[in-house]
């Protein structure tokens, strides 16, 4: 069906507005991160200003941000890898054997408000002397990643025909061998989708790290708050910190767009 000409004009105008309202605030944040606090307070210098790297110097040199970047990377990567190891076989089983109720157990983690788990977790993990360590952070972030991975991979395995595995069985492979040598290699795109999305959600997670991390194990979303004081806010530093958190993940998103979209819309069209 061909859209009519007036519709095309209307669409172009509307879409420019949409793109502008989504991009402009982000550009504003990045611009402010290159301004001195004096320039941020001067509305006359909204667009024309002398860029400075001072804020990034503060963030990266003085505020210990390099370590926090490392923490975020390590926690997100570890949570993703362990969740894939647990989640992919589980999703396979749940898809092939139609284990709807079992899947529901895992997907419950998506529904339950995180706060309701934090007090008991805090209690147990502080008794185990684990609060402030990486292990507890990775475990809590796995709690976010695992249901996501199971959800995406179940949809993916549903779409893979079982005939290939049956053929492999006839050729003498065991069931597990068929999964390992046939199904798993075929599901690499699905695993990539699940892994990327899991990494992003773990990187962005705030509430668990807020309670369970220590001064040295803080992840980036928690470390941002170092720039918010009770009396005043270091706006330049804060925007540089916010930029350091968001821009890497956006760049990743741009390169692997296809996977992110397919992950976020997994299951949407099946209803």
């Amino acid at each position, binding site marked *: 069906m061909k859209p009519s000409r007036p519709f095309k004009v209307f669409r172009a105008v509307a879409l420019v507005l949409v793109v502008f309202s989504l991009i402009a605030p982000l550009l504003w944040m990045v611009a402010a991160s290159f301004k001195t606090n004096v320039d941020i307070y001067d509305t006359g210098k909204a667009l024309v200003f002398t860029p400075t790297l001072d804020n990034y110097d503060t963030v990266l040199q003085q505020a210990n941000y390099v370590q926090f970047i490392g923490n975020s990377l390590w926690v997100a990567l570890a949570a993703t890898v362990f969740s894939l190891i647990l989640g992919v076989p589980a999703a396979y089983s749940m898809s092939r054997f139609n284990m709807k109720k079992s899947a529901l157990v895992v997907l419950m*983690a998506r529904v339950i408000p995180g*706060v309701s*788990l934090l007090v008991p977790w805090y209690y147990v993990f502080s008794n185990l002397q684990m609060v402030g360590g990486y292990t507890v952070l990775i475990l809590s972030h796995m709690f976010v990643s695992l249901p996501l991975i199971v959800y995406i991979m179940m949809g993916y395995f549903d779409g893979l025909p079982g005939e290939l595995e049956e053929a492999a069985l006839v050729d003498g492979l065991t069931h*597990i061998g068929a999964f390992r040598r046939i199904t798993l290699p075929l599901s690499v795109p699905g695993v990539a989708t699940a892994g990327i999305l899991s990494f992003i959600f773990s990187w962005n997670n705030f509430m668990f790290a807020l309670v369970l991390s220590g001064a040295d194990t803080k992840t980036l979303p928690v470390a941002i708050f170092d720039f918010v004081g009770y009396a005043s806010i270091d*706006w330049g530093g804060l925007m540089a910190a916010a930029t350091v958190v968001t821009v890497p993940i956006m760049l990743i998103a741009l390169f692997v767009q296809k996977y992110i979209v397919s992950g976020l819309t997994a299951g949407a*069209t099946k209803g």
Partner: protein
Amino acid sequence: MSAVTTPVTRSPEAGTAPAESAWSRWANAHRKWLFAAPAMAFVAVLIIFPVAWTGYLSLTDAEGSVRAESEFIGFQNYLDVLSDTDRFWPAVWRTALFTFVVLLVEVVLGMAIALLLWRPFRGERWVRVAILLPLVATPVAVGMMWRLIFDPNIGMANQVLSWVGIGPQPWLSGQNSALPTTMFIDIWQWTPMVVLILLAGLTSLSDEPQEAALIDGASIWQRFRHVTLPLLMPTVIVAILLRGIDALKTFDILYATKGRGGGSFHEVETLNVYAYGLSFDYNDYGVSSTVLIIFFLIIIGVMWALTYRKKGLER
């Protein structure tokens, strides 16, 4: 297809087949649970114990330290919480209002944008990039970004208003404007999610019903109302379910923009923020557990109602 459970008989000539140990025979026979159990156990341990413990705590007067001694006081906390018109009920009301408004706006706006993007056009790639960016941005950083833009003195928002002759607004710092402003931020960040889901649904629709309606002389609106929308309804419900769960639990943006306790007048204090404050600022574990159990029941109830409605629609 059904899973293959019959053992495969091999001819003796198939010498390349790996030797089966007792372990691998057992593993193959029990692979269903061998694969699923670790993930289920992980989630169950991290859920069942905490929820049970929260349920128990809600029946005690626990406070101060998580390790402190506490006394069993029955349903006293529930009576207190349910009769608390000062913090609890306003928080329930705010949670409901926040969820309802952001869901409504995100679905309507998301549907409009998805319809715009439906048919191919030049520059599609750029629009898709723009739509993806807010989605992957860290919510806390997004909150901080808007906090600068909405700052009453130095923010760009009031600057723009002054160009069109409107006086400065308090935005996040106003007692009545804070909640709508946080709703706006949520809508900015998550409408793209609804767009993506609905667009996936639209793309999977077949063109034939549309063309048939066109031949019958249906207008654009009639085609949308009577053809596209009913066909897309299952996808809309999925979008509402996914966004609804997250909107009910919104925390990051509220915490980043208004801090602990949802501002000095608790103006953005939703159930999630309220429970967090009770637990980790006031260490009022008994009461916070009560709030959490009630919150939990509300979420389960809403989920059940929505999936029930979804089944009804599919019939």
